[in-house]
């Protein structure tokens, strides 16, 4: 539909002052969004882009921060080659992947069927259980980790006390008595137990978050599809495998992506559990902890930056593999 020039427009032609005001208004209208965006853009550049670019710049330099900016010296790829020759880089990477797989996989393997079960049990029970499982996620990581340190304590910790009480129950004791020979378990002082100790904490903290995602996903499944499956004679297990699970694929994709990124950046829990040391034989040292140690304790910012970029490349590669494996189906496209 075409429009004839308005009276106002005609008046503008005749009145240059009014025209000028209008063009000013037009410019203002165009600039206004940028004005509103400016605070974000400034903060984004100062706190994100600058840090990003500066760490890349640093990774090609040797720099002890305490000696000031003037002490920075260009060293090319030396920090990268040095990182790749460092035994603890590989050890911390292995630990990180181990922890990511152990806690990450178990979170999803538990959260998916549990979400389906909670949805099946009705809204009242579901709301209560979801809140209970979600609570650890919103609790302070530092506080939770400190509590777990106490719980893992070999002689006075509640976990060992519970295990001892359990295996010494009348019937259980007949076939679990051998466990007493291994007590007390030294969760935080034993190379083989420290990773499971961290993974259990991670699982406890994050399983509720994934549960909420999967419950939301199952609730988007239309009643008709569910009812059709029931009419076709599908039982509970079949409906889970052949109806709910395929429907959850994009949610699983989203959850697994978050787990991969989060796991590879794991820092606070192992840092507190191992008192910042990485544990016996560095068996609880994650890659984020190692680069923190290099940067802030050993004051080698260039090396730490190079490792953080290597970590970035690893995260990007693993995420890309995941995209490749899930393909478009992962994003809910067919």
């Amino acid at each position, binding site marked *: 539909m075409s429009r004839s020039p308005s009276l106002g427009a005609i008046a503008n032609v005749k009145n240059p002052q009014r025209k000028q005001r209008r063009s000013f208004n037009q410019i203002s209208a165009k600039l206004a969004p940028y004005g509103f965006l400016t605070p974000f853009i400034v903060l984004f550049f100062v706190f994100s882009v600058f840090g990003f670019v500066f760490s890349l710049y640093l990774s090609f330099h040797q720099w002890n921060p*305490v000696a000031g900016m003037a002490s920075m010296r260009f060293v090319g790829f030396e920090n990268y080659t040095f990182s790749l020759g460092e035994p603890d880089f590989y050890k911390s990477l292995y630990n990180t992947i181990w922890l990511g797989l152990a806690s990450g996989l178990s979170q999803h393997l538990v959260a998916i069927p549990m979400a389906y079960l909670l949805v099946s049990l009705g809204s009242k029970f579901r709301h209560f259980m979801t809140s209970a499982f979600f609570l650890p996620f919103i609790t302070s990581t530092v506080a939770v980790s400190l509590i777990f*340190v106490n719980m893992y304590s070999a002689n006075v910790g509640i976990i060992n006390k519970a295990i001892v009480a359990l295996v010494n129950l009348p019937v259980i004791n007949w076939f679990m008595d051998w466990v007493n020979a291994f007590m007390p378990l030294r969760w935080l002082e034993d190379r083989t137990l420290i990773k499971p100790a961290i993974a259990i904490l991670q699982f406890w903290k994050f399983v509720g978050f994934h549960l909420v995602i999967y419950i939301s996903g199952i609730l988007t499944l239309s009643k008709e599809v569910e009812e059709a499956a029931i009419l076709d004679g599908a039982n509970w297990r079949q409906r889970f495998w052949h109806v709910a699970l395929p429907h959850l694929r994009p949610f699983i994709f989203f959850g697994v992506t978050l787990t991969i990124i989060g796991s590879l950046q794991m820092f606070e829990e192992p840092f507190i559990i191992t*008192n910042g040391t990485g544990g016996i034989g560095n068996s609880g040292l994650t890659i984020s902890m190692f680069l923190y140690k290099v940067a802030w304790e*050993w004051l080698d910012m260039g090396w730490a930056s190079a490792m953080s970029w290597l970590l970035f490349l690893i995260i990007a590669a693993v995420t890309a593999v995941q995209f490749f494996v899930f393909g478009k189906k992962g994003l809910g496209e067919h």
Partner: protein
Amino acid sequence: MELKKLSLALLLVGTTAAAQAATTIRYDCWPNHDKTAVDKIDDFYAANPDIKVEVLSNNWVDHHNKLTTALATGDGAGDLVCIDVEKIGAIVNQGGFTDLTSAFGADKDAEKFVDFAFAQGKGTDGNVYALPLNIGPGVMYYRREHMQDLGFKPEEVTKDWDALIDWGVELKKKGVPLVGHAGSIAQTIINTEVEEGNSIYFDADDKPIVTSERFVKAFTYAQKARELGLDGRFGDWSSEWFEGLKQGSFAIQFSGAWLAGFLESWIAPDTAGKWGVEGLPAGFYGSWGGTFLAIPAQSENKEAAYKLAQWLTQDRDIVLYEFDTNAAFPALRATFDAPMFDEEMAFLGGQQARLLWKDIAENIPSVKPSKADNIARAIILEQALPSVVEEGKDVKVALAEAEKLIVRRMRNL
């Protein structure tokens, strides 16, 4: 009336001008070493009306990280900052601090402090960069029910390390571990039996000496204590350690003088009278912890900051106040004749422990910090020692591997 108004106006102008002329400085520290500067600041103002002090307190870790960032960017550090002795080697020798010898002739105050502490504040160029605020003369704390009550004598069981181990074997028969963690034996030997001219981990040319006899001896004793089952297998500051100090479930703890204050005030206040102190085994002297004051080169108020540093470290009453309220043992010799040093300490079973600490403080050999101490400490105490104690790794192999790692990681220093 007009004259009155005029006088009032002049007074107001005068006051405002005086307020403007006052120099404001910032003192950065961590709890509780910030407390004296807050509690007693009026005494400082009385002598220095032209200086105003703001105190900025962060926890220990944040304080040092913030200081590192401020030194990196050349802006944001306090005019006077606390530095833990553990960090001093890595931080002070990198050029971010004021040379107090050249700027204020700080060397002339050397006699005022115990020798080892004043030496720790010097850089590799021999100039003073930091003044000692407090020190931690090292002793062996022991529980009396596992010592005198069982017929043992502190001076006999600390005759040498073998005597200590023998006592541990006797205690084990009664079901009492000697120490919380066997690693503390190694740590004590490493820190206190340093050869003349060396720093803890390096020789005078900054070459690592971690395969030397001292380290082999330290690791061997720790491994032996573990093999004989003489430790409780829990580290310092763990929940079992706290519980053990309260219950007396292990016999000894090597630590600084400050631990007595910690035990009495918050760790185990109900254990008064159950503790005793003795010098370290084999007659060596050492220090556990300590705090220094330094002036960042970026400060624009260095003179005012130095006045505050002098007041905090050299004013006898102030240093004694810090000792009394904060259990921070003084490095200032002028405090050593205070009556409180002769007092019997009820918490330590009536011992005149402060006299023992004073004697130790005067005899601790000077060991200069090295700029790679941080790296070496992490490798030796957090990696090599646990691998020997917890996993039975061969001592010489563990130390040789540690040396390689230290050399590799100190590439830029």
